[in-house]
C-alpha cells in the first residue's frame, strides 16, 4: 500500500498534469519565488512612524506611556502599576534583566510567567506602525508566556524598533534571527472576544490590559 503522502502528491501531480521530468522546473520556480520574495501593495505613511504606532495602538485599546532612557523603565512601570492599583508583583523577561529593578520598589522575578503571575513585563522585537502591533519573538531571553498568562502585559518598546509594516519587520527578522524563533507572536492590544452577541469583551484568555512603554 502506498503512503498517504505519495498518494496525495501523486494525485496532485496527475491533476496538475505534471510530467515527472517537469518537476525540477517547478521546484526551481518555487525556490525562486521564495528567494525573490517581494512585498505586495501596502499603505504608505507620511510623517512620524512612532506617532502612527501610538495612534493605532490606542485604537486597539492599548495604553501608551513614554520615557527618555532604558534606565527610567523600572520606575515608570512601578508608577503606572501603582496608579492603576495593579500591585507590585511582576515577572520580567530575561532580556530586560540588565535594568535596575531593585530600585523600583517592585517585587520582581526574572523569568517565565506562571499561571498566577499578575503582571508580565517584556521587550519587543519590533513594533508595527501600520496597525499598532507588537512583534514578539520567543527565545530563552523572551518567553512567550510573559505576554500571555498575566492579566496585565507591559511591553517595553524602543523607539528605534518601530517599523512601518510587517514586511519591514520580517526583513529585519530574516537578517538577524538565527535560528528562526519557535514562536513569532503579533500582539494587537488586549485579548478579546465577540462570540456572544458580537459584543466585544476584553480579556478572553490572555491579558485584560496591554500597556506600552516607549523608550527614547
Amino acid at each position, binding site marked *: 500500500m502506498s*503512503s*498517504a503522502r505519495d498518494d*496525495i*502528491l501523486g*494525485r*496532485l501531480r496527475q*491533476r*496538475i498534469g505534471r510530467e515527472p521530468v517537469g518537476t525540477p522546473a*517547478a*521546484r526551481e*520556480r*518555487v*525556490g525562486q*519565488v*521564495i528567494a525573490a*520574495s*517581494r*512585498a*505586495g*501593495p*501596502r499603505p*504608505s505613511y507620511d510623517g512620524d512612524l512612532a506617532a502612527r504606532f501610538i495612534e*493605532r495602538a490606542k485604537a*486597539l485599546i492599548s495604553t501608551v506611556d513614554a520615557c527618555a532612557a532604558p534606565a527610567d523603565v523600572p520606575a515608570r512601570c512601578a508608577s503606572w502599576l501603582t496608579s492603576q492599583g495593579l500591585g507590585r508583583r511582576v515577572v520580567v523577561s530575561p532580556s530586560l534583566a540588565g535594568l535596575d529593578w531593585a530600585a523600583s520598589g517592585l517585587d520582581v522575578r526574572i523569568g517565565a510567567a506562571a499561571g498566577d503571575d499578575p503582571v508580565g513585563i517584556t521587550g519587543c522585537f519590533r513594533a508595527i506602525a501600520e496597525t499598532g502591533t507588537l512583534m514578539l519573538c*520567543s*527565545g*530563552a531571553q523572551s*518567553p*512567550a*508566556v510573559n505576554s*500571555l498568562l498575566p492579566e496585565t502585559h507591559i511591553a517595553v518598546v524602543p523607539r528605534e524598533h518601530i517599523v512601518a*509594516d*510587517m*514586511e519591514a519587520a*520580517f526583513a529585519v*527578522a530574516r537578517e538577524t534571527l538565527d*535560528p528562526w*524563533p*519557535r*514562536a*513569532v*507572536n*503579533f*500582539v*494587537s*492590544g*488586549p*485579548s*478579546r472576544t*465577540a*462570540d*456572544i*452577541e*458580537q459584543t466585544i*469583551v476584553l*480579556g*478572553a*484568555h*490572555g*491579558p485584560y490590559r496591554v500597556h506600552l512603554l516607549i523608550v527614547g
Partner: protein
Amino acid sequence: MEIRSMHFVSRVRQRLDDTELQRNLQRTRGRNAAARLASLSSLDDFDAVRARATDIRASVLRDLDVWLERFEAEATRRGATVLWARDGDEACRLVIDIARRHDVKTVVKAKSMVSEEAGLNAALEAAGIRPVETDLGEYILQINDNEPPSHIIMPVIHKSKEQVSELFARVHGTAAKTDIVELTREAREKLRPEFLGAEMGISGGNFLIAETGSVAIVTNEGNGRMCTTMPRVHVALTGIEKVIPTLDDLATLLRILPRSATGQAISNYVSLLTGPKHEGDADGPEHMYFVLVDGGRADLIGGDFEPMLRCIRCGACMNHCPVYQTIGGHSYGWVYPGPMGSVLTPLYQGLEKAKDLPQAATLCNQCGVVCPVSIPLPDLMRKLREKQVDAGLRPWSERLSMRLWAWVAQRPALYARGVRLAVRYLRWLADGRDRIQAMGVAPGWTAERDFPAPAAQSFRDRYAARRRAGR
C-alpha cells in the same frame, strides 16, 4: 461530521418558524458587512491588495505538489513532524496515535474547521481522550451536547446571551448571569486550568508558510496561543490547500483576512509557530506535528472548481448572503454554511447528498463581490447546478417541464401562441393589479411572494407590430 444537507428544505422550514433564532439572527444581521466596509478605507488600494491576495493563492494551487514538498522540507528541517491524511478518518487515526505515543489524556483545541470535517472530537472521545474546545464560541457548543457551529468564525452567532447564560448555569452549576463580561470571565476561569493541565494542544492553521515551515494562526481570544504554547505536544491540523509561499505573502493576506471577516485592521493575535521549543527556551511544546488533510481537495485541482481552494475562510460570503442571514448556518447541514459551504459541501460530500445547496442562492453575487480572493461563487454554484442536471439529480417534475419547454421553444409558432395564452391567463389572475398573489397552477410559487403580472402584449407581438408600422 455527519452530513445532514439532504434535509435542507425541512431544516430551513423549522428555522424560519423558530422565532428565537430569527430574533438572534436579526440582532447581528449586517453588522459584519458594515464593519468590513468601514475597514477598507485604511488600505490605500483595496482592489490591488485583493488582486495580489488572489494571485498568491492561485499561484500556489498551480504548483501545489511542489509547494507542499517545500513546506514539508522546511518544517522538518526545523524539527516538526509532517504527516499526511487522505481523509478525515485517517486524520483522526493519526491524531489519536500521536496522543497515545505521548501518553495524552486531555487535549485543548483551538478552532479548526478541518477537525469539524473529520469529526475529531467524537473520535478522540471514543479513544478515551478528552477534547476541550477553547474558543469561547466552540466551548459553548461543546458543552451544549456538541452542537455544530453555525458560522465559520462566529460559531454561536445563532445564540442569545440568555441562552448562553442558561447553559452555563446548568453545566457549570453556577448562578445564572446575563452580563456578557461575566459570562466570558466564567469561561476564562473554567478553561485556564485546562490550558495549564492538558498534555496536548490541537490547532487549525490559517496559513502554512513554505519559506519557514511555519503555521500561522489568527485569533482574537488568545486561546490559539495557549493551545500552542502550554501543552508539551502541539498538533496543527490543516487542509493541504493552506500553503502560501512567503512571510511577505502572509503580510498581504493579513491585510485582507481580518478586514473581510470582522472589519478589524488586524486580529489580536497572529502567531507563527515553527517547530518545537529550542534548547534553553522556557516555554513551548517539546513535540510539534503537522497533519495535512486532503479530504477531497486534491480532486479539485485542475478542474472547474479549483478557485474554491483559494478560500481563506473569512466568512465574508455568508456575512453578505441574504439567504444565509435568513436561514442561519445550521440549515446547511454540514461544517461550512453560506455560499462557500453551498459549493464545498457537494464537492467534499457528494452532489447527491447536498442537492439543495447549490440551489439555495439567488445568485445575486454579493458573495462574489466581497470575496477577498475573488472566488466566483455564483459561477461555481451554477456549475454545480449543471452537474446536477447532467447527473439526473433534479426532480422528475422539473426534468419533464424543462423537456416540454425545450420542445415548445423549438417551435416558434407554437411558442408564440403559448405565450399569448399564458399572458391572458396571468392577467386574468392579476385582475387589474400589477402583481399576482395566488397562482392557480403553481401555488407554491406565490406562497411567500407575489408574481409580477405580465404586460398586455408580448415582446414578440410588439416587435412584429412595430415592424409592420415600418418603425
